[in-house]
Every structure is written in C-alpha cells, then in structure tokens.
C-alpha cells in the first residue's frame, strides 16, 4: 500500500468535490486494437494501462510471482502477459476472442477491444469493431505494411469505423528512422485510398519502451504530433452523429396499470423534444411527443444513444419493432436486401440457408437466397463463390418473410446491422451490414428529390381525351400473340379517338432496357421500367399498353401495386404452348430446347400462369381483332372510355 492511499481527512473536501466532478463529466471512447502476433499489440495495451496507473500493485505482485525473472525491458513485468484472461488460452499461449479492457484519464474513459492477431480472426475483429469509435492498427516498423495490415484496414472500413490510428511500432528496432516511418505511411496511404471517408493518423511509437504512447519520446524528436494517448483523449468522436433525422426503434411498451402508456427505446439518431411531430412506421400514423419520461424527471430534449420512454398525444397502436421517426422517408423498407455478411460458423453458408435475422427491431425468419460475391479480405477483391466459409466476408442477398425496416449501414450502424441466428442450435452464425434493398422495386429515391406537379388537372385531361388513364398489361408465353394484340388494341383505341402509348417488351429492350438480359432479375427490372414509364404515361392522362412475357407472378403483382390496382388491367394471353411453338418463326423454342437459350419461360424457366387476371384470351380460337375488341369492351365496362 502506498502512502497516498490513506487519505488525510482534513485535506479532502473541495478538492475531492472538484476532482469527482471532473471525472463524472468524462466521455467514453471505445477503440479497437489490431495487429499481428508480433506487432506488440498486447504490449501496447499493457503500456497504456500501466502508464495510466491502472496496473494495480497486487496484479503486479501476482505477475512477478508468476514470471520470476522476466528480462529485457525496463519494466520488470511482461506487459503482454497482463492482457491474457482465460486459463485455457493462457496455457495455449494465445488469446482466442475479444477481451475488453478499461482504463481512464481525467478526460475520458476508454474501453479497449483487444482482438487476436492470428489467422482465424475476422469474426473476432468484426465483433470488436462493431462497437468501436476508433481503431488502432499496429504495424511492426521492421516489417512494414503486410497482408495483415491490409486485412485490418479492410475490416475496419467494412465495419464503418471512420477514425484510424496507424501506429508504427518498434521504432527502437529501426533506429527511430524518420525515412522508414515515412515510407510505411506512404504505403498505407496508397492502399487505403480505396476506403473512403477514413481519417487516418500516423504515429511512430515504441510500446515496449513507452515512446509516444502516453509520454512524448526524445528518441522521436523529429515527430511533433500528439502521442497516442493525447490523440485518444482529444479526437472528436461526435462529429458523425446524425442529429437531423430522429429515429427510435420501440423496444417495449411500458404500462403502469394506471393508464400510463409509454414507448421505450434508445434514440438511434436525431433529437426529440416534447411537442415534436413523429410518425410511427410502418403504420404511417403521425402524433406529437407529449413527454420524454425518465426516472429522474421529464427531459426537455434527448439525443442519440439515450435510452428514453416517450409518450404521445394520441392513442396510436405501436408495438415492439415499430419505429418512431421525424421524417417518414426514414426508414427504408424491403423484403429483399443486399448485405455484407461476416460468416462466423464452422459450417459454410450456402444459398438457400434458412435462419433467423435479428435486428434492432426484433427477429424475422429469413433465407439467404444468393451469394453475389466473396471478398478477398487481403486485397478487397471480389470473387464469385458458391459458399461462404468461417471468417469469410461476402455480399449476399437476404430475403425476409416479413418486410424489414432498416437504414443502410453506412447511414446508421445501429439500424443498419443485423445478426443471423441458426434455427436449430440458436448459434449466432453471421453478422450483416445492410447495403441496400436488393431489388430496384424496393429502392427508395434520395430523400432530397421532390417531383414537380403538373398545372393540368386530371379531370381536364379526362375531358380532352374522353378517357381515364389505365395500364393494360398483356402477359403470356413467347409467340403467344401479345404484340399482335397490343398493336390491334392500339389501332382500335386510336380509331375510337382515344390516346394510348404502346410499350412493347421487345421494343423497350432496343432502347431503355438495352443493358438487360433475360434472367429473372433482369426480366423483373424490364417490367419495372415499363411500369414506371406507364405510370408517367397514366399521369399524363393516357392509356398504357404493355406487352411482355412478365413470367413472375410476384413481379406482376408489384407492377399492379405500383400502378394502383384500380387502374391496372391484367390480360393473360393463354395460347397453348404447342401453338406458340408453331407460330415461333424465330425458332426460339427450338433453341431453348437445345439449351442454346437459358431461362426461357415455358421451357427452361417457369412461367407463373396468372390466376387473378382481369381477362383471359385464347388466340387459338380468337383473332387478334376479336381479342382487341374484348379488351376495349372491358375498358369501357370499367369506365375508362367515354363515349
């Protein structure tokens, strides 16, 4: 026990008060340390702890008993050994997981996520990085930037850490060489160019001797930047917090049995004040914040990271997983997502894997439907892959049984992340960062975009053209007669003085869909583009006639939803496939049967026969003109045509 521990009671009072006050206003900084086995990472953390007086006497005593006669450094303890925790790991001489360490100065409290440097570590590093504000990447000055450094930089950037310290360690072993240090910095800068938005601080250091860790080094007189500790104490960690968009995902509904009903959750971004208008998502119902309730009294304002309970001025139905937001364009919503996945299980991931997706809003059954590519974490290069192994990173397509509300991970780490849980053994098998909705159908436009409104009213157009706008989707197999019917319909409407726009799938592919092939996602995109054009056409008061195979029922349903069901007419040209084959003068059926054309609906791909169409036409018994007339009759009956 040291002398200063027994406190002179007369000497404390105002002095303690102010000291305690200072400490109570400290901020919290979480950082991750990454380095390979010999980069001196554990030594660095031991040094930070030691030099900030966190290494207690009895821990030191235990150490000197354990390691009798440690030699080498000026410290008679092995700083690295201090960092080890679990007995079995200690026996193996390795650390196999993330260990959290705590130390503090008068300005900040620090949580260090220490992750191992050996080969199988992506999972651990991702875990440590997920909650870190900053990463310290160690480089052995003798080795320079290696494959591991590239890996550390890649994972740091993948997990969204925007502040990095590259600590070039063991400067003592290269005679404190400034030129060598500058060379390593240049190498790193060259490599890290591809990781945008990362703010990097380069620092020469010797953790073993303590140079530039907490104390300034006289050996590194040529370097005048802050020491690691000075940097950690002062680096701004709040500058990337989004204060503009209030988001809160409801965790629990709090009821006290006496009429109190509050919505508990942690503010994910933005600020909230009593009186603010908020919208509940997905219901879209708006209300105003009545109170921000806490145990210590109501708050006037709450910002990101604060756990609160809100009451609203209206009785609206809100449950766990619902969002309260200031701006209804937040969050995004989709059934299908593209996400970067860190795979954390021994069993490799394959397309079609069923599991549970857990996000801030709760859990949903999910299928990993496809692996778009695997990332070589050493280079950042993308490679095709049939499966994803332990510690691999891959871009995958995730299909959810229930629509998910989310933000892209780069927008919000809290609401853009998820874990995948195995349904059988409940293991956490993967960690995901959402990139975007997979399908363009789900993609939300930039919130800054606002469409202009026409000065011409719908009723004016309706009187001028003698019609109400609608879209006729003519679907059916190749060579069923869709284009012929569409052309006949266009003629018939024209002759009656009506105005229509014909959007033929093949014509569209000659222009706006020139970039698309014939796979299912590409056929879906072609229909989406046609539907979007039809929407513009309808908005101008015109009738749209779309003729294309549109083989997928789900995609047709999306078109119907986009164009609104009461303005959408689905016509199924139900020509027997044998008749189609005979009419097919381009020989496409034959080519498909020979395997020359893949994904050909009716032969090598599925055509979902419509079940809820508005009209079914069989061209083997009706002429194109008769078919067109039948459609016109239907349009007239639905009130789309006047006079």
């Amino acid at each position, binding site marked *: 026990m*040291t002398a200063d521990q027994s406190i002179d009671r007369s000497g404390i009072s105002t002095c303690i008060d102010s000291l305690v006050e200072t400490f109570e206003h400290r901020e*919290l900084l979480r950082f991750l340390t990454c380095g390979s086995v010999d980069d001196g990472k554990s030594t660095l953390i031991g040094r930070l702890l030691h030099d900030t007086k966190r290494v207690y006497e009895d821990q030191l005593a235990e150490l000197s008993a354990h390691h009798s006669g440690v030699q080498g450094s000026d410290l008679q303890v092995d700083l690295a050994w201090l960092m080890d925790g679990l007995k079995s790991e200690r026996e193996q001489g390795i650390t196999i997981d993330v260990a959290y360490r705590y130390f503090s100065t008068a300005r900040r409290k620090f949580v260090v996520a220490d992750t191992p440097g050996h080969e199988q570590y992506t999972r651990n590093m991702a875990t440590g990085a997920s909650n870190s504000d900053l990463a310290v990447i160690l480089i052995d000055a003798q080795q320079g930037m290696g494959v591991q450094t590239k890996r550390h930089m890649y994972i740091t950037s993948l997990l969204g850490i925007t502040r990095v310290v590259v600590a070039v360690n063991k400067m003592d072993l290269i005679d404190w060489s400034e030129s060598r240090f500058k060379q390593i910095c240049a190498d790193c800068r060259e490599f890290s160019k591809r990781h945008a938005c990362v703010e990097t601080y380069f620092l020469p250091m010797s953790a073993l001797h303590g140079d530039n860790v907490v104390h300034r080094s006289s050996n590194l007189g040529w370097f005048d930047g802050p020491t690691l500790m000075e940097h950690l104490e002062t680096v701004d960690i709040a500058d990337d917090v989004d204060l503009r968009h209030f988001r809160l995902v409801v965790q*629990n509904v709090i009821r006290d049995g006496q009429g109190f009903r509050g919505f508990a959750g942690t503010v994910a971004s933005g600020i909230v004040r009593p009186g603010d208008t908020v919208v509940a998502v997905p219901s879209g119902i708006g209300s105003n914040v009545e109170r921000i309730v806490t145990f210590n009294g109501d708050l006037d304002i709450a910002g990101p990271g604060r756990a609160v309970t809100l009451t609203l001025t209206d009785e609206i139905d809100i449950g766990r997983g619902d969002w309260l937001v200031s701006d209804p364009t937040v969050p995004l919503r989709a059934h299908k997502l593209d996400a970067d996945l860190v795979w954390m299980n021994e069993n490799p991931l394959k397309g079609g894997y069923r599991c549970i997706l*857990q996000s801030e809003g709760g859990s949903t059954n999910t299928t990993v439907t496809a692996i778009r590519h695997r990332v070589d974490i050493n280079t950042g290069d993308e490679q095709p892959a049939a499966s994803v192994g332990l510690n691999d990173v891959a871009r995958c397509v995730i299909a959810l049984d229930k629509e998910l509300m989310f933000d892209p991970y780069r927008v919000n780490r809290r609401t853009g992340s998820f874990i995948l849980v195995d349904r059988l053994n409940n293991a956490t098998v993967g960690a995901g960062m959402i990139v975007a909705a997979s399908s363009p159908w789900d993609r939300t436009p930039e919130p800054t975009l606002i469409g202009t409104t026409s000065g011409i009213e719908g009723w004016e157009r309706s009187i001028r053209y003698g019609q109400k706008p609608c879209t006729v989707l003519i679907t059916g197999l190749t060579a069923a007669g869709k284009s012929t019917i569409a052309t006949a319909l266009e003629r018939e409407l024209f002759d009656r003085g009506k105005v229509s726009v014909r959007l033929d799938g093949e014509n569209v592919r000659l222009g706006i869909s020139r970039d698309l092939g014939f796979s299912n996602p590409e056929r879906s995109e072609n229909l989406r583009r046609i539907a979007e054009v039809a929407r513009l056409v309808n908005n101008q008061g015109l009738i749209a006639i779309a003729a294309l195979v549109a083989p997928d029922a789900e995609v047709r349903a999306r078109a119907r939803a986009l164009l609104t069901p009461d303005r959408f007419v689905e016509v199924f040209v139900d020509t027997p496939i044998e008749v189609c084959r005979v009419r097919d003068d381009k020989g496409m059926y034959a080519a498909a049967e020979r395997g020359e054309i893949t994904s050909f609906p009716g032969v090598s791909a599925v055509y979902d026969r419509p079940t809820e169409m508005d009209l079914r036409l069989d061209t083997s018994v009706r002429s194109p003109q008769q078919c067109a007339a039948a459609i016109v009759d239907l349009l007239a009956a639905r009130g789309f045509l006047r006079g």
Partner: protein
Amino acid sequence: MLADVDPAGLRLTNLEQLESESIHIIREVVAQFSSPVMLYSIGKDSSVLLHLTRKAFFPAKIPFPLLHIDTTWKFSEMIEFRDRIASELGLELITHTNPEGLDMGLNPFDQHSTYYTDVMKTQALKQALDAGEFDAAFGGARRDEEKSRAKERVFSFRDRHHRWDPRNQRPELWNLFNGRVNKGESIRVFPMSNWTELDVWQYIHIEGIDVVGLYFAAQRPVVKRDGALIMVDDDRFRFEAGETPEMRSVRFRTLGCYPLSGAVQSTAATVLEVIAEQLNATRSEREGRVIDHDSSGSMEDKKREGYF
C-alpha cells in the same frame, strides 16, 4: 429545426452512456425472454443494477422477481439492508438456501472455501433457477473485476446444467443480443459489463443510491488472518489460537459471506471519500475476496460450473 440545439450539449458523458446501454440491455431481456429473474447479492453492483432496472421500466414496476441466494453467513447488516430495500420498493424477492448444505451444517470455517462456495452458492443458485424455471438471470458482474471476466459476454449462454463453455459462446456485435435458448437452457445477463468500480461509485454518488453501510469506513472488530482482515460479525466466529478481535477503521470493497470477505483499512466514510480513495487506489477490488486466491484461474473454474 436544429438552430437552437447545441450538439455538444447532447453528448452523453461516460456515465450517461453506460446507464443508457445498461437500460437498453435490461429492456431487451424483458422483450426477449418469458421468465427473467435478477440475482440480487445486496452488494453495491446489485444496488446499481436494481436502480437501473427501476429506471428502465419507470413508471411501471420491475416486471420480474429478485433472487437472493442466502448462505446464512452473510453479514447481518446485509440481510437487514436487503429486507428494508425489498419492503421500501415493494419488490418481489425470492430467497433460497441450499437445504442439503444447511442440513450438513456447512460453514466457511470448517469447510474449504471451494467446497463451501460450490454447495452454498453454486448449487443453491442452480436449485433456485431450476425451481423458478427462469430462462434469463441478471447479474451485476463487470468485466473489469477479474481477468477471466474480460471476455465474458453481456448475454452469456448456459447449457441445461447451467454450465459456461468459454469455447462455445456466441459472438456479440453492436447492440444486438441473441437471447434464443432451447428448453432448459438459459442466459446470464450482465448489463453492467462495461462499468468499472470507479463508474459504480460515481454513479452511486450522482444518483444517491442506497448501499450497505459496510462499504464505508467505521471502527469494526477484525482479526488478521492470512494477510486478510476478517470481521467478527456474530458469535459464530471461530477464533484460532491466539486470535483476539481488535477494533480498526475498515471498510469493504466487496461483500459476501463475512468469514470470506476481507476488509481494507480505510477512513473513507462517505461516498465522496470512497471515490477519492478509488482515484488513488493501488489494489484491485477482488483482492479482499478469499475465494479468488485458491488457485490461478479459480474464478474461471467456478464459472464453468455455474457460479455467477
């Protein structure tokens, strides 16, 4: 909309951030589990955890019971404190003592501390958790307490035998906690994982949280045994040859069974003085706990068996 808001004023302090994160975890447990329970040890960490839990559900009551494993060898002041808090706050408190251990007359003087702890604490806890069919149990443990805890999860999975397997723990990312368990399995939840001893004391100070008086220095009868100061709390104390109690100004940094809890010499009689002492502290917290010194890595062995 933001013109009148100073972003710096919205930044959370270390303690505010820890508080919010702990509340988030506590609420998450209530949302994910059907039958949680809080392990209440009467110590300062339990007092803080209880306070955080009240905050998490305010103005509603705590939606789960508290469980105290009573070895019958706790400081008498602890038991008085427990009963007073439970009645003041209207808590649902379950207490359990291992009846077999009681029948055998186990005590920390005659039995080796490893055996005694296993029967009266570890086994007793398993009995109570099984009896209540609890699928989640909160504890006030912190990662900074002891080396083996540095890698402990916030949601720590236990198999049907309440065992902890350090090789089979779920990765824990962001603020997403996987609480899925099959029948009979459970999760131990440590909402205060990222708190340090100093944080705990500062929070007690700021929030004015009531803690057992034993944490503050007073003249107490102690005997020095194997380098530790053991308090003579009642007449069950077994003196060894030549031992006589002497009055010393001592306090406790951790509390448990009184014959196994070492006091530290101190004059810190208020929360502020304890904090001041902390800021100058040179000895780590669990030092006073006799059970940790049995063998290197002993805490880890206990955890594998199901100790908290």
